[in-house]
């Protein structure tokens, strides 16, 4: 299995990558390739050109900025899972990164690629959503900052336009409890359902694989804010969700799992 033919350019800078994206029709960015290449091998995607930003050093960093930690979009899952700064300031994130795929996948896949891909079944997008992260997006004309809560809009669809590039993820530090519950049946598998919870004054909860995008469990968050018990709040886990039915689980089973896992997550985090 190999992809349809395409042109390839290794970008030497963010600016060069954006200028290629703006001038070549149907060009796509290539980060770690661990979502895009499998799709291209199955011919579910056939871009005319790949603009490789995976090895751009200017996009690979983890920096303590005081209130938040700035993460370059091409930082790999492995580097996030082993980062000392993140382990001490935002322990949820390195833990989630350590649960993605397997070691080989974590050596190649990047946080920016995972977020830009916008798969509702992915772990890191749900984590940054619960962490209230902000994304720095560079384009041909200007740079903009998009909150995670406004970034994911539909199935594999984000607010990124074809000539934009996600450059940085800004994740606020937090000091309270947290939890990540990933339910799967076999090693290396994607989550059938996953839950990320952060308790930092208020409680924020997001869900993996409970809809077309990573989802914030607003009904749970509101119930907790109104003083509901963990039991009552977690019974609202699937409110407003539209979980898929697939080979691993029915939609109904996912609803059940979400309640069970949210309860576990809240018990651990709150």
């Amino acid at each position, binding site marked *: *299995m*190999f*992809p*349809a*033919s*395409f*042109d*390839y350019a*290794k970008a030497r800078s963010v600016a060069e990558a954006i200028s290629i994206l703006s001038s070549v029709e149907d060009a796509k960015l*290539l980060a770690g*390739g*661990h979502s895009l*290449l*499998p799709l291209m*091998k199955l011919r579910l995607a056939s871009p005319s050109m*790949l603009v*490789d930003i*995976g*090895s751009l050093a200017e996009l690979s960093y983890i920096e303590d900025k005081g209130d938040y930690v700035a993460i370059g979009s091409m930082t790999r899952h*492995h580097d996030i899972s082993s980062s000392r700064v993140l382990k001490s300031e935002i322990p949820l994130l390195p833990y989630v990164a350590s649960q993605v*795929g*397997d*070691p*080989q*996948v974590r*050596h*190649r896949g990047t946080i920016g690629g995972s977020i830009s891909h916008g798969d509702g079944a992915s772990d890191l997008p749900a984590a940054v959503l619960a962490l209230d992260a902000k994304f720095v997006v560079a384009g041909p004309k200007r740079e903009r900052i998009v909150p995670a809560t406004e970034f994911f809009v539909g199935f594999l669809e984000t607010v990124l336009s074809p000539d934009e590039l996600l450059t940085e993820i800004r994740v606020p530090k937090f000091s309270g409890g947290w939890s990540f519950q990933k339910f799967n049946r076999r*090693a*290396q598998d994607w989550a059938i359902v996953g839950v990320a919870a952060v308790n930092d004054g208020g409680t924020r909860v997001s869900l993996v694989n409970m809809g077309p995008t990573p989802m914030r469990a607003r009904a749970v968050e509101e119930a907790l804010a109104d003083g509901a018990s963990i039991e009552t709040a977690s019974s609202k886990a699937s409110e407003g969700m539209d979980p898929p039915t697939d080979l691993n689980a029915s939609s109904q089973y996912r609803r059940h799992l979400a309640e069970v896992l949210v309860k576990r997550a809240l018990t651990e985090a709150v």
Partner: protein
Amino acid sequence: MQITTVVNGKSFTKDVEPRTLLVHYIRDVLGLTGTNVGCDTSSCGACTILLNGESVKSCTVLAVQADGLELTTIEGMASESALHPIQKAFHDNHGLQCGYCTPGMIMATASFLKENPAPTEADVREGLEGNLCRCTGYHNIVKSVLAAAEAMEGAVK
């Protein structure tokens, strides 16, 4: 497109199509057929090699992405006179049956032991979660990796 890679210590400059997968570059262009293709869908780990010292699934990397990088395949593990300690441990502990998964297992182990030189049994099982074996039931593979860790720690001391 022309790419240069250092494979098992030797430099190669070759022309490849951008869509050439790294595993095909290794097997078909360089003729190093020790690296196997099992699933071709990023799941089984049979195609695992080291890219700049880290394990990757070479069926899910483009050859052009490896331009300028160092590759190690199973052919680069043994010296002229002796098996690599990981290979010897698999041999001694019956860590293979048909052997199809073995090159990938050994390369994944090499990367894993670099990150975690003194693993527990549970660490090993988790560290090799990207590699599937249809024959052994894994027990002897885990035994082999633990034995290799011990042998290599010994070598360091």
